[in-house]
């Protein structure tokens, strides 16, 4: 099983956020929006990063530098080989009708591929701490029917929470949400009020990434735990014990 792929592009896209593109036909061919890849950074454990976009055989990821693993990932340059497992996990479902994408911060990145796949048939609401932290807004604007931004400090778009922008306007038949846990909880609450099915992308610390080690546990509404890596990372809002 070959897991080595060539990096074909890297860029710093905001303060602390980087993008990396690698040529991985085997991943690109099978990937659906919401799935992730598991990347070897030369450390004991791989790092899970969502697929942000696919173009032909090229896979793009966008990530925030948090610690040693993402620091090393940000140093990868054109021509380097990276060791990547994927695509992993269950992504967002295919839905008929319009989809509202709700992203919080770096959680906006995985929704771009969903936007690309659904095209004008989707709308996006994206939330960031401030204008300087906003990412991928042009990419979303290029493919989505509508894009609205919220910032905590009001420096761009609506001042307040991104979930304030989830309304009954737009006749959406599903909401796909990705972001910090409190934002996901708020998105699920809004969706329930509006009676729209909601799918959330969850995060948990991982080891194997393929379902064998049981460390990526997420408490389930009907008792016990789900594995974020292979039962998710995308779950219906109702599956999670909030």
């Amino acid at each position, binding site marked *: 099983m070959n897991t080595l792929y060539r990096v074909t592009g890297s860029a710093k896209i905001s303060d602390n956020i980087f993008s990396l593109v690698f040529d991985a036909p085997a991943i690109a061919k099978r990937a659906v929006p919401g799935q992730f890849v598991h990347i070897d950074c030369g450390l004991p454990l791989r790092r899970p990063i969502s697929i942000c976009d696919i173009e032909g055989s090229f896979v793009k990821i966008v990530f925030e530098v948090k610690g040693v693993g993402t620091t090393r990932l940000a140093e990868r340059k054109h021509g380097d080989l990276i060791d990547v497992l994927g695509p992993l996990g269950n992504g967002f479902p295919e839905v008929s009708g319009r989809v509202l994408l709700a992203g919080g911060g770096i959680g906006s990145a995985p929704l771009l591929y969903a936007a690309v796949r659904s095209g004008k048939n989707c709308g996006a609401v994206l939330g960031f701490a401030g204008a300087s932290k906003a990412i991928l807004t042009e990419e979303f604007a290029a493919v989505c029917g509508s894009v609205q931004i919220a910032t905590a400090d009001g420096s761009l778009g609506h001042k307040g929470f991104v979930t304030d922008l989830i309304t009954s306007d737009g006749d959406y038949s599903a909401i796909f949400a990705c972001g910090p846990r409190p934002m996901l909880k708020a998105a699920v609450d809004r969706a329930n009020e509006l009676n729209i099915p909601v799918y959330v992308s969850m995060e948990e610390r991982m080891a194997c990434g393929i379902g064998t080690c049981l460390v990526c546990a997420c408490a389930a509404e009907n008792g016990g735990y789900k594995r974020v890596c*292979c039962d998710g990372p995308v779950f219906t809002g109702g599956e999670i014990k909030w």
Partner: protein
Amino acid sequence: MVNFAGISFKNPVTLASGTCGFGRELSEYSDLSELGGICTKGLTLHPRAGNPAPRSAETPAGMLNSVGLQNPGIDEFIKTELPFMRTLGTRIIANFSAASVEEFALCAAKLADSGVDMLEVNVSCPNVKAEGLAFGTSPDAVAAVTSAVKSAAGNVPVMVKLSPNVTDITAIAKAAEQSGADALSLINTLLGMRFDLRSGKPILANGTGGLSGAAIFPVALRMVYQTVNAVRIPILGLGGINSADDAREMLIAGASLIGVGTALFRDPDIAGKIAREMKDSRE
């Protein structure tokens, strides 16, 4: 071929309990029929939900885990997982633990009946309060558990998995041998902790967890070496094995089989690679 406690293994490489589930997912990444054997996730009489998250934290050369023996229970294992495991073409070692001597015997009887090749008695899980570790740190308790399991297991060989969280591992090893254990496996994880700098709280929801991976390799070698010189029964050595050279070093320390665990998380085919490399160098 390795003869280990009366069972033939096609080579000395096995997968460590809890790091390969029941082989199902891993079999998509690695041909498990190339391996000597596979140890199941730790089983218990009744299903267990496990500990709250976070359950893992990376460490400089390994990781901490506090899964807490999440498993579907022995009956469900026999019904839904074992039939698939039988198709893998490798020896099946059922790892299990219990909360009392009687329960250990009951589990052993069920598993021995199910047709697995060997039992691995986990008296050493650091993540479950009042279970494994309490047993694993007292020679008398290990003796009682081993005798009870032996009498319930019929012809199925019994391997006792030892905890490194003890002052003198040879005292525990001898207690298991004298009570009829056919083999020993060591080591399980070392009890550890990490804190989140920002919150000042432990990273693991359980507080403490078990350290595994390269960090514990020298400790495992030392404990295998000490134990080999204290008992006559064969030993499966594990803890931090990452390469064929590590595996060879573990055999030099005196182990007859070796187990690969945490290294699978970086490379799901690492055990296959180790088995192939060791085979090539023997030919």
